[in-house]
């Protein structure tokens, strides 16, 4: 029987394992030094905030793995020998594989700041980080978070629930405006302030200072300001975790280099999830890093086919993502650039409460939808996927916007307000709301 070894039990590794098992009876071993059982990394924050226990973050009960003959090994891989097709473990054991998947995830970025390794300074990625966080926060009254992204906002919310004062030190002019258009970034920034958190925008960390006890005491910014704090969260993004791969014959750059089939330079060795760097095919394109839950899942699904003999190209389809900034949910479909690109037009609507907004990007010439960012309103994934795929115009989208609404029953609807704004901004435009609600029959029969 063929033996598949997967290094890493995150969403990419586990999706690969589960989907291989659906198609094949080959022996599957998943190795992790983080936890024995798969858990949802995205839920770490909820454990800390007391919304859930660790068990609640495990998508499968513990009997699932034995029943599906997926062997779980709680150990650390120290080296990979692709010539003898074997790996060595910290426990001293070594295992032979027929096929190997690297799904080692990410590590938190650190940019060589003085004091970045002091006690009381850390990132947030793994379950161990969460345990360290509990330890680090024991005496914390004031925390500084460096770097404003999706992990930064989660960490801030976590600390806030413990009554800790949070100050963000952020390079950007507005929160996450390296990704979000400035209107959206302003909405998020405003909401952060509303929660009583402090934002130091357009500010860089210069140095982290130790106190007499050797732990962090304060930070200094590039503006010369010293901020007293007992904890520093470093959340300026993550990088592929390639520690163990670096010393093997497997080709790496910043991540494990793979082609569109998630194959490495070595036959029978693949990679998936956060740790990959997908090589650009065309001239002028850049290598891709995809460090999202969703892409990890999609990598795993495609890769499982390839491993089972049905070589499948990884295609990520219409882009989508979502997040939650404190109380405000965010979804995005298609491609929304933070700065308007050439040939693009934008329609923007924001509710007076500043907690709901829609930012629609479309082609200036043919008005075809390119992407949408939405805050505080839920939209239907499958409807927007279809509209982008079919090249629907912004006018079509607005007239049928009711079909894409995914807010709970009785929620106030804003489609009419949004259309009115569009009509008032575009001379001669008199759009009317044609589809007010979603009906599955209408969706199936392509009515919108």
């Amino acid at each position: 029987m063929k033996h598949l070894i997967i290094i890493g039990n995150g969403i990419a590794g586990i999706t690969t394992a589960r989907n291989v098992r659906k198609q094949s009876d080959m022996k599957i071993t998943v190795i992790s030094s983080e936890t024995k059982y798969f858990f949802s990394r995205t839920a770490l924050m909820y454990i800390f905030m007391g919304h859930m226990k660790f068990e609640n973050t495990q998508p499968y009960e513990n009997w699932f793995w034995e029943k599906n003959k997926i062997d779980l090994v709680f150990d650390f891989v120290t080296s990979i020998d692709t010539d003898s097709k074997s790996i060595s473990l910290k426990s001293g054991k070594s295992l032979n594989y027929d096929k190997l998947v690297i799904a080692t995830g990410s590590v938190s970025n650190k940019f060589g700041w003085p004091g970045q390794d002091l006690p009381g300074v850390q990132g947030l990625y793994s379950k161990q980080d969460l345990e360290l966080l509990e330890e680090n926060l024991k005496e914390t009254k004031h925390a500084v978070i460096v770097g404003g992204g999706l992990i930064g906002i989660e960490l801030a919310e976590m600390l806030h629930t413990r009554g800790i004062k949070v100050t963000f030190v952020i390079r950007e002019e507005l929160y996450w405006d390296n990704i979000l258009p400035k209107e959206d970034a302003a909405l998020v920034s405003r909401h952060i302030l509303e929660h009583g958190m402090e934002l130091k925008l357009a500010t860089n960390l210069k140095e982290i200072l130790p106190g007499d006890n050797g732990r962090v005491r304060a930070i200094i910014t590039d503006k010369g300001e010293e901020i007293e704090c007992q904890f520093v969260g470093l959340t300026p993004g993550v990088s592929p975790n390639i520690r163990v791969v670096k010393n093997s014959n497997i080709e790496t750059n910043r991540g494990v280099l793979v082609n569109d089939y998630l194959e490495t330079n070595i036959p029978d060795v693949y990679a998936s999830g956060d740790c990959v760097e997908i090589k650009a095919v065309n001239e002028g394109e850049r290598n891709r890093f995809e460090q999202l839950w969703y892409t990890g899942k999609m990598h795993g699904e495609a890769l499982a086919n390839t491993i089972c003999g049905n070589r499948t190209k990884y295609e990520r389809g219409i882009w989508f993502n979502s997040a939650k900034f404190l109380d405000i949910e965010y979804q995005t479909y298609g491609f929304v650039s933070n700065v308007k690109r050439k040939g693009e037009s934008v329609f923007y609507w924001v509710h007076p409460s500043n907690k709901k907004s829609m930012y629609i990007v479309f082609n200036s010439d043919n008005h075809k939808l390119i992407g949408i960012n939405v805050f505080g309103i839920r939209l239907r994934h499958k409807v927007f996927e279809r509209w982008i795929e079919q090249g629907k115009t912004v006018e079509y989208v607005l007239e049928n916007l009711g079909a894409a609404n995914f807010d709970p029953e009785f929620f106030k609807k804003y489609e009419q307000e949004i259309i009115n704004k569009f009509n008032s901004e575009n001379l001669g435009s008199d759009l009317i709301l044609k589809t007010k609600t979603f009906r599955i029959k209408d969706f199936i029969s392509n009515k919108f």
Partner: protein
Amino acid sequence: MEQIQIQPLKIYQHNNNLEIVEKAGLTLIGLGILGFAVSLTGMGNNTPLLFFLLSFGLTSIGALTFILPKLKTSPAGVKNNNIFFNTFTSRKTAAWILGIFITGFYIILYWFPETLTNWIKLVDPLSYWLRNQKADRWFLYGTFYTFAVLIMGTRMLIKKRHNKYHIIRTLSVMFFQLGFAFLIPALLLRLNQPEHYFTYFWPLHYYDLFPGSVDSLLKNGNIGYFMVFWGAIMTFIATPILSYFYGKRWYCSWVCGCGGLAETAGDPFRQLSDKSVKAWKLERWLIYSVLVFITLTTILVWLNFVYHGELLGNVSSVFSQVYGFLIGAMFSGVIGVGFYPILGNRVWCRFGCPMAAILGILQKKKSKFRITTNGDQCISCGNCSTYCEMGIDVRSYAQRGENIVRASCVGCGICSEVCPRGVLKLENDFTDVRTNFNILN
């Protein structure tokens, strides 16, 4: 770049210390509990109204005073902070004490009511005012129950103020409890009519369709006929129709008194439900057994009635007594509510209620209701499953992009609310396309 003004209108300063108002609320609750304790000695028997205010009154005002400041400590949104650290809501010491206390109260209420004599006297003024007669233990119980639904309902209205679905359905259960399960039965008594609960039907109020009850109702003339007719219509006609359009939620989380208590007083305990596949199996065995049991019992008592006891002797009365003790009292009361802090708030509804069993079959087999999963947006975090009071592993469907159609779902809508990615939506839509089952497990 043009400068964007980002100063918000209001800034909330959150800290974890109790506000002064909250401390005052806790003090009043403490005094109210003291009022209850003192009343039990009979000290208030001569001035029941005063002691009613010192017990029920102070506790209620205290609870509301404790709840209200939540409005200003942070913006509206999902705030399940510290639930698994709190001693009341995470099966720790206080939870056990509370569980034993409520369980004990039910045991005393059912089997040692004389112990409560002095508490019953507390609600005498209220009883005379509403019903023009002396209070009894069931009026005391009804008063406790209604206060619990109204006060904890107010807490829900504040906690869920960002979600209109929860606001409306909470107002609905508060309305039905206060109006249909408390005031109307009381007014009927005042008017010398049979005490009747229009929001409970067979098989939850199993004796409503027993020959004895039907017979005695019919003796009351037109209103009695209406009550019997209403009950039969609700059970056999309205239930399938409403369940077809809206799922079982029209009853379980909008109207029913058991559901009303679970959705208000029981809300802090919803995360304690067992999500394992084992519990799901147990649920199916138990709930359908109870349904069979009560159906059989009802048939037997009718046979007995028709044949004047000649055919079966006292078999049917043994059946109905055993059902009344095991299911009516032990399961729905003692375990169903007493064990809120240990097993969660829907133990009775999930494992025992025969009405829920019927509604569940209708919901599963013939209904427009489902919970729609939003494409591939699920991140498997598990908030939905954790906060499902019925112990449904919602995530297991959501992460496969599959809709949720489950007999037990009461449509409370909490899974949709706590989802941080906008993945779940309660919907009534075309019956033929509800879900697709294509599962590896």
